[in-house]
Structure formats: structure tokens, C-alpha cells
């Protein structure tokens, strides 16, 4: 099975061949490195830019104005903050021009903790991203969804932010991407750049097929009747494992996948059934995106149906994520904390 970095790479290759993508760019995105997480190795349209995030986002906007689909990358979301006004401009461009121009661009950036990235390689961006109207925001939690969401992002006529959970970039999928070789070794030999001199290396791309994950559609990855957990990105597999292992409660887990637009119907139906809901992500907790979802639960008729107030488990509202594991694990949700929260929600007596 492909890992998420390989899935992203294959999606970008598919888009080069089928969606007329001519520019995949960012710092160290082109040869020889092919991205600090190897997600852009071997791509024929990948190129390296100056170390200039504003230049990267601005160039993407310009390409979009020229009607070109492109994929730009900010190496870590921790370094995207100096582009906020450009992101705002990109988000409002179709609106402020009353539909005169649209931007069919995709911006990808690795997010979140889990690789011991310390203060400037562990940030999340979903809270910020969902506050920039006009963008669509997606975040996969497995390779196949990464492939399908990225293709949907590239095809979309709006600007789409593709948030890559960096700690999941090496995880493998459970289901093949259409056209993906069954043998992991065959795939690795075909599309992973060799160590050392790569100057004469070219990938041998498998005959992969189109597979789209619709933006705005969540996925129920485990059904249950006692509690709904809504998560995405790094914390999703942790929630899934805890749900599967839970001995007494039957927990439903929703992978939101698309943060804006989001799949309210799936959340609504699930909470209506389970009557308890826990939202989990690793962005800082104050003005967290999940607070909006929680608010929505409380403002709907679900308020009169649920047995416990909707809960949000997120990153602590501290300025950074410390390097030492004690600090990181006390700052963003890991299994122990999620487990504790699950028990608390389950034990609330209506």
C-alpha cells in the first residue's frame, strides 16, 4: 500500500497528465529533493522557488488569474503566517470582483504535531484556514483520501487548501488507489527517488486512475450508537483506535475530511443517533474550528435530543508546542487524553 506521501505524489502526477497542471512549486519542491517529505519527487512540472512564502502564494494567485491550475506548497504551515493577507486576497477575489475572476489553485502545506517538530514545525492551521472565506479546506487522514481529495482540490475552480497531516505522511493505506501496484516494493522501486545521486533517475509511474473524494463529504469510518467522535488529520486514527478498542461503548467515528464546506448532514444524523458528541483536533482550543461545529450542535434541534453537552478536545492555548515529549503530549491531544475525554462524555448522566 502507498503511504500518504506516495499517494500525494501520484495524485500530482495524475494531475500533470490529465488536468493540465503545469506548475508544482515551492521551497525544495523540485529536484533533487522533491519536497522535505518526498511528496513531490519525480514530478515533471515541479520546481524550486526562492525561500519566499509570499512569492509562492502570490505566484500561485497570478497563475490562477491567468486561468492556470497550479499546486503551490508552503514547506510547513508554521511559515505560512506571513502570507495571510495574500490568502485573504485569494479567498475574496471571486467575490470582490463579482465573479470576474476565479482562482483554480491548490495550496498544500504540512500541518500539526507528531514528529517532534518543536515550536516552528508543529503548528496547526485549520483554525486559521477556516476563517478565510472563499477557500475550501480539506485534510486527509489516509493515503487513498489524500489522493482523492487532492485531485478534487486541483479540479475545483476555487482556491483549495490541502492540509497535510505531517505525522501521517508515512502511514500506509488499507485500500489500494486505483491503478496502484499491489506490491509495496514495486511501488517504491518505481516512484521513490534513490538515495545519493538522482540526476539520472526518472520515476516509472504506475497506470493510476482518477479517484475523487468529493469536497464537503465526510466519511463514517466506524459506526456506533453511544457516542460520535468527529475528527480529522493526525487525531483521527487515534480516535478510531480508541473507538475500536472500547469495551463497553459503541462509538461512531467520523472523518470530517473537508473542513469547509463541511458535511453537516453526516454530523447531524450521527449525533441525532448517538446523542453524545466529541470533536477532536490539535489546533489551539480558543476560537477553534470545532467550537463552530459544537455551537452548531447546540443551536440546532439536537440541543433537545442530546444527553451531554457537545465537547471539544483540542490543543492547549499556549504559544507553541515544546520539543520534549512531555511538553508536546501535554499540549496536543494524544491517546490518553482522548481516552479520558471519551470516558467523561460517556459518563455524563442526562
Amino acid at each position: 500500500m502507498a503511504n500518504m506521501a506516495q499517494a500525494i505524489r501520484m495524485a500530482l502526477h495524475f494531475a500533470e497528465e490529465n488536468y493540465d497542471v503545469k506548475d508544482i512549486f515551492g521551497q525544495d519542491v523540485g529536484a533533487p529533493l522533491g519536497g522535505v517529505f518526498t511528496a513531490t519527487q519525480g514530478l515533471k512540472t515541479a520546481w524550486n522557488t526562492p525561500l519566499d512564502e509570499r512569492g509562492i502564494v502570490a505566484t500561485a494567485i497570478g497563475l490562477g488569474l491567468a486561468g492556470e491550475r497550479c499546486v503551490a506548497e508552503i514547506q510547513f504551515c508554521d511559515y505560512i503566517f506571513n502570507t495571510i493577507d495574500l490568502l485573504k486576497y485569494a479567498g475574496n477575489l471571486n467575490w470582490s470582483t463579482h465573479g470576474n475572476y476565479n482562482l483554480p489553485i491548490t495550496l498544500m502545506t504540512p500541518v500539526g504535531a507528531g514528529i517532534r517538530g518543536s515550536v516552528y514545525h508543529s503548528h496547526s492551521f485549520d483554525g486559521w484556514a477556516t476563517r478565510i472565506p472563499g477557500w475550501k479546506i480539506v485534510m486527509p487522514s489516509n493515503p487513498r483520501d489524500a489522493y482523492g481529495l487532492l485531485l478534487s482540490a486541483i479540479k475545483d475552480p476555487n482556491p483549495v487548501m490541502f492540509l497535510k497531516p505531517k505525522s501521517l505522511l508515512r502511514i500506509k493505506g488499507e485500500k489500494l488507489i486505483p491503478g496502484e501496484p499491489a506490491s509495496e516494493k514495486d511501488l517504491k522501486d518505481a516512484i521513490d527517488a534513490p538515495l545519493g545521486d538522482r540526476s539520472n533517475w526518472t520515476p516509472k509511474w504506475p497506470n493510476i486512475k482518477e479517484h475523487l473524494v468529493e469536497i464537503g463529504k465526510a466519511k463514517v469510518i466506524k459506526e456506533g450508537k453511544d457516542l460520535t467522535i468527529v475528527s480529522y488529520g493526525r487525531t483521527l486514527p487515534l480516535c478510531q483506535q480508541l473507538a475500536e478498542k472500547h469495551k463497553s461503548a459503541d462509538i461512531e467515528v467520523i472523518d470530517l475530511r473537508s473542513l469547509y464546506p463541511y458535511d453537516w448532514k453526516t454530523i447531524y444524523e450521527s449525533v441525532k443517533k448517538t446523542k453524545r458528541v466529541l470533536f477532536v483536533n490539535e489546533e489551539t482550543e480558543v476560537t477553534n474550528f470545532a467550537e463552530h461545529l459544537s455551537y452548531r450542535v447546540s443551536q440546532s434541534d439536537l440541543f433537545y435530543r442530546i444527553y451531554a453537552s457537545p465537547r471539544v478536545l483540542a490543543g492547549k492555548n499556549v504559544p507553541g508546542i515544546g520539543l520534549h515529549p512531555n511538553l508536546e503530549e501535554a499540549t496536543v491531544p494524544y491517546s490518553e487524553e482522548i481516552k479520558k475525554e471519551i470516558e467523561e462524555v460517556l459518563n455524563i448522566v442526562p
Partner: protein
Amino acid sequence: MTATEAKVTRSKTKETFSGLGKDLLLKMHDLMLQSRILEERLIKIYKTGEAFFWIGAPGEEAFGVPLGLLSHKGQGLAYDYFHLHYRCTPTLVAMGMKAEDSIRLIMNKKGDVCTGGRNFSNHYCFPEMNITPVSSPIEIQYGIALGTARAQKRFGGKGISVVSGGDAGTAEGDFATCLIWSSRPGEELPILITVQNNGWGISTDYKSQHSEDKISDRGKAFNIKSETINGNDPVESYIKLKEAYDYIRKHKKPYLIEAYVSRLYGHSSASGANLHQDQEDGLKSYEKRLLRADLIKEKDVKALYEKYDKEYAALFRKIQKEEGPSADSIWDHTFVNNENADWRNF
């Protein structure tokens, strides 16, 4: 000197206008005049309480008009892309913008083709002429122009990207971004980078913040062909801009022009929008030269003023009666094709 002697002296030193033909000289004057009278109409609209805000271009006509006249106008990669700032009415007038589009924009009418009543005056957007939206954030256009220029270089043809901004905004990093990215070795981009230097950033004197002799000197550090010109002289502007356009079309490389211009009505309505008579008025200076050279008569100039003033006043009265955008349109165009963007309906 007697009157006769003076006449002889003038005739001996008759201006050549650098060889530009009479038709072009008069056309530039006409367009400069149109732009000025349109801007003055916009100011009147603001001052009579018919608009919330004015910002614009009186004093930049001598540079802006040739910038537009020399363009390869059209839609798509084969034509020039323009990434303008909010003092570019002269360029748009020279490219054929209708005055009513400018008036609807400042009056935020529903029929405003640039923004649908959503943005300020001079925040133009005309996709049919590759006029990308003018942004209020200063200087972001310098980075954005890199994208259209890259697409144009790949496309081939004669289309280039033109980006303009003011002197104060060159302090933003996006200006440096433009210089660096447009001159990457082997990846040079066909961009005309212009800086209209009026010496002010709202109330702050340029000289109090910048120690470089010329902004154009910064281009030289990146081996970009760079020049500083008198942007109050339409003849010099035309000649130098033509050189720049031709160079970029031929070599597919950047070119930087800094043009000294005036800011005749201050920064915007926020600073009063009153006439500052202590600065050179490029339009008046040019008119004097045309009159001295007998290329135009006083009565013709007067007639032109009256004609355009009357025309724009009538347009204002017509547009004044038009409706504004409806409140229920606020979600329109948040996403393309009005795909639902309201979370209440997810």
C-alpha cells in the same frame, strides 16, 4: 526682448516632441484630459455625498496614458496582463474604459462591472482587457504579476505582464519578491515593473523613509534594465515606455521604470481631495507645449474640457438613479458559480 524677437526665438527652438507625430500627441492630450476630468468628476461625486470614498490618479496622466496606449490589449495569455494600483484611471482610459464604469464603481451601483458595488473607486477589474483586480493591500500586485508573467513566458507570443505601484509601497517585501523572482537566472520573466513615485505615502514624505537615490537603482542589483524618468512628461514617458515594452517583448526579461509623478489632489478623500497647486501639473505643462507649438488652439482645449465635463456630469445624473446591490446578494460569488458557501445551508 520685443514681441517680434520672442516670436522668432520660439520659432527657432520649435519643439520636436522627440519625433512623435501630431495625431499621437493630440490623442495623448485628449486621453489625459478625459482622465483628469473623469477623476475630478469622481471627486465632485464624493464631495456631494454621493460616494463614500475617493482615491485616484490626478497628476499621473502623463505616465499612465502612454502606459495604456502602448499595451497589447485583449483577453488571455497572448495579450498583456495589467496588475495596477489605485491610481491608474489614465491607463484604463487610454485602453478604452468607459467613463460610466468608473462612475458606477465609485457609486457602488449594482451595475458596477468591476466589483458589483463591493469595492472602492479606482479598484478596477476588466477581464476582457486582462485588467486583474486592483487591491487595497499595497504592493501585493508585484508578487502576483509573477504568476501571469510565468504563464505568458510559457505560452510564447508577445503578451507581457505590467505591474504598477507607488513609491511608498516599495518598502514592502513584495517589491523585492518581484525583483528577485523576475530575474531568476535562466527563468527571467517578461514583466514591466513600474513605480509611480509621487514622493508620498499618505502623509509621510518619501525622503524621510528612503535613503536610496533612486528606486530604479534597486533593479540594477538584479541585472534588471532600470530607468528613472519624468512621468510628468508624456513624450518622455511614451518614448521610454515604448523602449521598455519592446525590450520585454523581444527578450522576455524584466524592465523597471520609476516615473516621477505628481499627486495633485492628495492621497484620497481621507486627506481632503483638494487641489495642491505646489506640484507640477503634467497635463497643464503639456498643454502649454502643444499650444506653443501651434498643435492645438486655446479654444479647442476649452471645448474639450467643456465636452467631457458635460458628458461625465450627464453620466453621473443617469447613474445616480440606478439601484445599488441587494442585501440578499452578499453570498453571491463566494464560491464559483454561486455554489453554496453559507454554512447554515450545508
